[in-house]
């Protein structure tokens, strides 16, 4: 059973990060530039953060472990993002133009998880899923899992060989745990997130992979804590809860809570936070999302949140 101290820290970290994210969105940060095109110059600039905030909001609504204020903030962030995406039209137009791009679907999925739907996009994604081209496009193995999980959540009926997809990842090979690096750390976390649908399906991870993670997560958390890589530590703590009973203890949660600012800004690393609020948002919004996800998944798994309902069929 998860330590009460860990649960208290997870709740604190998550609710503060959500407060900061919500306040930032109310201040206008995270909005697309006026007249945003289907082909943004830099998709990572605002388009990707909208999807990330939607992920955090959708998990809060799915798992239902936040208080009424948190639930309302989550809903408002999702509404904000959906408006920015012109109620999904922007995603539809981008997907229509770029058959092989997966980011429209990977953004859409978080809104679907929270009950939003775009009829034409559903129809388009269903049609594209029947193309051989879509299934053999070149991508990293953990990215292929992201696409498969998005299709699963959206309700696109496609046979998926999950064990084969898992085996193709770095993590699935159970490699030498001392031969990991920072970037691979994120490959590991995303492999787990997609196989378990962000902690909802802990059994989605092959048992040997779960055992491997229980052995080595404490080491990886320890070294990236020492390096001040708070963003990656947060993702690894989320993984710790996705795979069952957490093994990393309360110390990393204490350290993350200790670096979080009073207003909830959660720094991505040990570097000084930029004094410009816009830059500070851009630099640290991902880590706030990570803190919300880690706290939510940890609380949900410990409190036995019900498995998410099957995705409704596209209208």
């Amino acid at each position, binding site marked *: 059973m998860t330590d009460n101290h860990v649960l208290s820290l997870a709740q604190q970290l998550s609710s503060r990060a959500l407060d900061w994210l919500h306040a930032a969105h109310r201040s206008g940060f995270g909005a697309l530039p006026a007249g945003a095109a289907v082909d943004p110059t830099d998709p990572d600039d605002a388009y990707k953060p909208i999807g990330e905030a939607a992920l955090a909001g959708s998990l809060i609504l799915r798992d239902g472990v936040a208080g009424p204020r948190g639930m309302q903030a989550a809903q408002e962030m999702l509404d904000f993002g959906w408006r920015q995406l012109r109620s999904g039209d922007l995603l539809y137009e981008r997907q229509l133009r770029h058959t092989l791009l997966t980011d429209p679907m990977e953004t859409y999925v978080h809104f679907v998880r929270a009950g939003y739907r775009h009829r034409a996009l559903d129809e388009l994604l269903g049609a594209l899923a029947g193309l051989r081209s879509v299934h053999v496009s070149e991508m990293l193995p953990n990215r292929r899992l992201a696409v498969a999980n998005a299709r699963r959540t959206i309700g696109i009926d496609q046979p998926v060989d999950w064990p084969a997809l898992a085996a193709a990842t770095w993590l699935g090979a159970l490699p*030498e745990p*001392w031969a990991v690096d920072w970037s691979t750390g994120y490959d590991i976390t995303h492999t787990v997130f997609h196989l378990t649908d962000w902690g909802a399906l802990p059994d989605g991870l092959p048992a040997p992979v779960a055992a491997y993670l229980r*052995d080595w997560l*404490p*080491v990886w958390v320890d070294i990236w804590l020492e390096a001040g890589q708070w963003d990656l530590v947060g993702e690894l703590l989320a993984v710790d809860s996705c795979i069952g009973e957490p093994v990393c203890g309360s110390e990393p949660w204490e350290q993350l809570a200790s670096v979080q600012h009073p207003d909830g800004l959660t720094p991505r690393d040990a570097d000084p936070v930029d004094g410009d609020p816009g830059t500070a948002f851009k630099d640290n919004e991902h880590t706030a999302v990570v803190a919300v996800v880690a706290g939510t998944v940890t609380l949900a798994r410990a409190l036995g949140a019900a498995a998410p309902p099957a995705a409704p069929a596209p209208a």
Partner: protein
Amino acid sequence: MPVAEPSLRDEYAAAAERVAGRALEALRGLGGAVVPATPLPRAELAAVRVLGPDVFAPWLLSGTGEPCEPAVLETAADARVVFPAGVPNGAADQGTSALAWSDWAVALLLARARGPGTGEADAPAGTRRRGAAPAPPEPNGPPYRGRWHPWSLRMAHLAPLALPVLDGPVHDAARRDALALARGAVRATLRRDHRTAARLARWLAWLAHTGAPCPVEPEPLLSALALTGDGSARTHLHLAIARRLSTGRRP
């Protein structure tokens, strides 16, 4: 004078590197004696004391059945007389505790090399008991209190005990908490703490040598550490002993 002690320490450290280098060459089958003919300079004697059971490694791992070099036996016994152990200052004093375990191991190895019934005379003060084997300084080995990180560091200091023939409470602890040892080795490797990584990899190789389950394959780790090591003879000696334990082949 404030400079006297550091310079003596430097001198002893350099001697330890020399003796470790000779042990390494002997282990690799390149010939030469681990300990040159006596009388040894005081620094060399101190080095033998520092290396403890590792001066016996070429003999233990040669697989030839040849007796141990008489100079090694004589010097190992003399070193403990010239540099007697301090009084252990509780479990927290890792250096003193590691030295006590080193003395225990050297006494056992001297007894084995000289034949049955000779161990008691060589046992360090406070650990003597009836019979050939001296009593271990801590009857239960280093206590493991659920924190793999500090425990693995403590075991790293005890890596010279990871040799064939030696078995006792520290070895029981290694078998019992193999995962904690492996986590420590992985952590040290990722932190580029080569000496600690080599010492803990040696314990993992010892586990493999005894047939005990090992959470990390020692061979690839040893190869990586040999390529990225800190260049010291002592670290290379740990790795060479580990490789010999792991594969049975000459490093």
